[in-house]
């Protein structure tokens, strides 16, 4: 009879060194990697040294508009909401599929295997916190700048430690982190919409996202020290409890990270987006089934509406995406940066309802099943993005009206009529397909630069920018007067032109579906 070995976990160090040795043997020698590292350090050092004088001037001058405490707090909340949303998708601890197949099911110490990943997560959270602290120090032109930055780092470590710790306690850590992100987003929205900026005094008790502001307002070094000890204790507890992390949680984050990294490595972000979308839907079980009751000719719209109805997270994303332009206006005031942020947020919001349009383009077999001519299919697929774009445009510019000149009704109207233009940009971005590697490279002093990825990156933005140009000019100038009729013309021309041209285009001969 064969008996199993001892009950305790085996040490992870021999396993790690085995994998390191094998990886090194195939990845190339020390000299090659040392050369790459040295080159990267030199380039990064050069860039940093070149920008230091500019940075110190920027920190001394501060932003064009001195933001209110509520605005800064809302920005902090929004940043942390984004970080927690990302942490929910990545785990935050995740493991590659091969490790999940052969390494984690073994009796090797799970803590020993996971602590390098946990250290990276905590380090990344601290760096993000430091960046938030630096932003607050810049925005407030804080005299004790370094202390403010340090408070940001401590807050980042605290939140990163908490996020990691939740994964060691519950299987539903992703849902918990997602809900926390939603809550922070809602708090940021409340601060922005109810225009509290001038009325609140932000203290450390508001939460870690407020610690840099509290430090700038004279938070005592003892309180900051306590926060530091608390953050270190939470991070330490997370590291100690790493052997309580479940395999299922590591697998979900690993699958997301794997899809994303393979999309980046193979430069096929379209497929990565589709795989991520499929994984997202695979975890859901709809309670109510059946298409919404719409006339048969609008069955495709019913599909879009159903997908949105089953995605409350997308609705939340659309709503929260209206906040960054309004908050940025409270820091920078009107200008090209604000216009760019508005366009970015708008395309992100409307892009949340273009998954089906992307599928029609990427998988022609599905589009063929619908039996509709290309133009008609695209026209119906553009209805929901247009509706969402109109609502989002009106909402975002109404919020923007609070911190800019001009009639609020004009802003609202301008936002509404820019909706179809945003839909055009988002639909073009959704239908851009794979990277076009056949495009010629550009020769630069740093070497050959492939233009395919660049082309993919700007596709969607190009038309979005062109069609929303009247609104962008008004946002940059801080005055909506006279922009509405021009925007109406640009929106209508853009939408009808896009449907006519893109809907008529035959699908790529490379597609095998």
């Amino acid at each position, binding site marked *: *009879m*064969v*008996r*199993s*070995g*001892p*009950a*305790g*976990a*085996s040490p992870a160090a*021999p*396993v790690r060194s*085995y*994998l390191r040795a*094998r*990886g090194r043997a*195939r*990845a190339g020698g020390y000299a090659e990697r040392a050369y790459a590292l040295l080159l990267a350090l030199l380039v990064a050092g050069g860039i940093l040294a070149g920008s230091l004088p500019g940075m110190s001037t920027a920190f001394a001058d501060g932003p064009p508009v001195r933001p209110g405490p509520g605005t800064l707090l809302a920005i902090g909340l929004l940043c942390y909401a984004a970080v927690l949303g990302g942490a929910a998708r990545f785990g935050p601890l995740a493991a*590659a*599929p*091969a490790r*999940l*197949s*052969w*390494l984690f*099911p*073994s*009796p*090797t*110490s*799970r803590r020993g295997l996971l602590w390098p990943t946990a250290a990276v997560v905590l380090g990344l959270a601290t760096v993000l916190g430091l960046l938030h602290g630096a932003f607050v120090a810049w925005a407030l032109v804080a005299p004790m700048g370094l202390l403010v930055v340090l408070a940001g780092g401590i807050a980042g470590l605290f939140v990163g430690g908490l996020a990691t710790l939740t994964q060691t306690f519950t*299987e539903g850590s992703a849902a918990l982190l997602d809900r926390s992100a939603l809550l922070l987003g809602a708090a940021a929205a409340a601060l922005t919409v109810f225009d509290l900026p001038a009325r609140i005094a932000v203290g450390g008790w508001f939460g870690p996202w407020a610690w840099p502001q509290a430090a700038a307002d004279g938070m005592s070094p003892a309180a900051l020290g306590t926060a530091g000890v608390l953050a270190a204790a939470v991070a330490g507890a997370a590291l100690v409890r790493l*052997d*309580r*992390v*479940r*395999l*299922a949680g590591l697998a979900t984050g690993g699958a997301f990270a794997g899809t994303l990294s393979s999309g980046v490595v193979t430069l096929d972000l379209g497929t990565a987006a589709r795989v991520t979308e499929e994984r997202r839907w695979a975890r859901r*079980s709809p309670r109510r089934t059946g298409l919404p009751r719409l006339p048969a000719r609008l069955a495709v719209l019913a599909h879009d509406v159903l997908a949105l109805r089953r995605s409350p997270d997308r609705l939340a994303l659309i709503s929260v995406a209206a906040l960054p332009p309004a908050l940025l206006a409270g820091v920078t005031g009107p200008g090209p940066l604000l216009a760019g942020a508005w366009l970015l947020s708008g395309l992100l919001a409307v892009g949340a309802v273009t998954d089906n349009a992307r599928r029609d383009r990427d998988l022609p077999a599905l589009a063929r099943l619908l039996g509709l001519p290309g133009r008609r299919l695209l026209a119906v697929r553009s209805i929901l993005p247009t509706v969402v774009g109109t609502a989002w445009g009106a909402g975002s510019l109404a919020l923007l009206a609070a911190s800019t000149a001009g009639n609020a009704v004009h802003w609202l109207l301008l936002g509404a009529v820019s909706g179809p233009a945003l839909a055009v940009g988002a639909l073009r971005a959704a239908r851009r397909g794979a990277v076009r590697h056949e495009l010629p490279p550009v020769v630069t002093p740093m070497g050959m630069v492939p233009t395919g990825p660049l082309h993919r990156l700007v596709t969607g933005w190009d038309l979005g920018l062109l069609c929303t140009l009247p609104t962008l000019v008004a946002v940059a100038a801080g005055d909506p007067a006279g922009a509405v009729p021009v925007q109406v013309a640009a929106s209508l021309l853009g939408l009808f032109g896009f449907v006519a041209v893109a809907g008529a285009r035959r699908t790529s001969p490379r597609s095998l579906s």
Partner: protein
Amino acid sequence: MILRTEGLDVGYRDRVLIRGLRLAVDAGDVLAVTGPNGVGKSTLLRCLAGLIRPLGGRILVQGAPVDERSPAFRRTVASLLDTSAWYPNLTAGEHLEFVQLVNRPVPAGWFEAGALAARLGVSRFASVLPGQLSSGQRQRLALTLALARPSRLLLLDEPERHLDEAGRTAVGALLRDYARRAGAVVLASHDPTLIAAAGAQPLDVPDWHG
């Protein structure tokens, strides 16, 4: 008793696939879970492996509740459930070496890695990286790795995937050998050749929703 389930309900949220299952699997037993697609065979195996929680009831492995976070549980249970993933920079032979390294100590009398690789035909491609292997070769390698690590309970989901008839017969014989080494096997399968070769007792799962 290596594996015992009491009043086990298996499924997802409010969708119960298997209801009130009572199992008692002891050393030397090979149990083949059979039934049509979608009845919950894979979900049952995932519950037994501690990857998802059952909707109700208890699962005991060597008298202790299932908890894949416990090193003692991981020493007892080996499983091959989903499609396996591979280290792209390790050859087939190095995967075998690696799996035995991470599952140390390998007790005396356990399958010898070289002999196991020879029986499943893995020695023929031991120096090849996984990216160059066919689906059948990968499945042979995955089964070799699952058997190479010491365990007392082996959980396999459709181990016949991508295998030719000779491969399925070889796997069946190895499962018999595993059971003879005081192990217990629970596999989900649609393949009568494999079930017969393993000398497995069938457990037919009815289709509750059919």
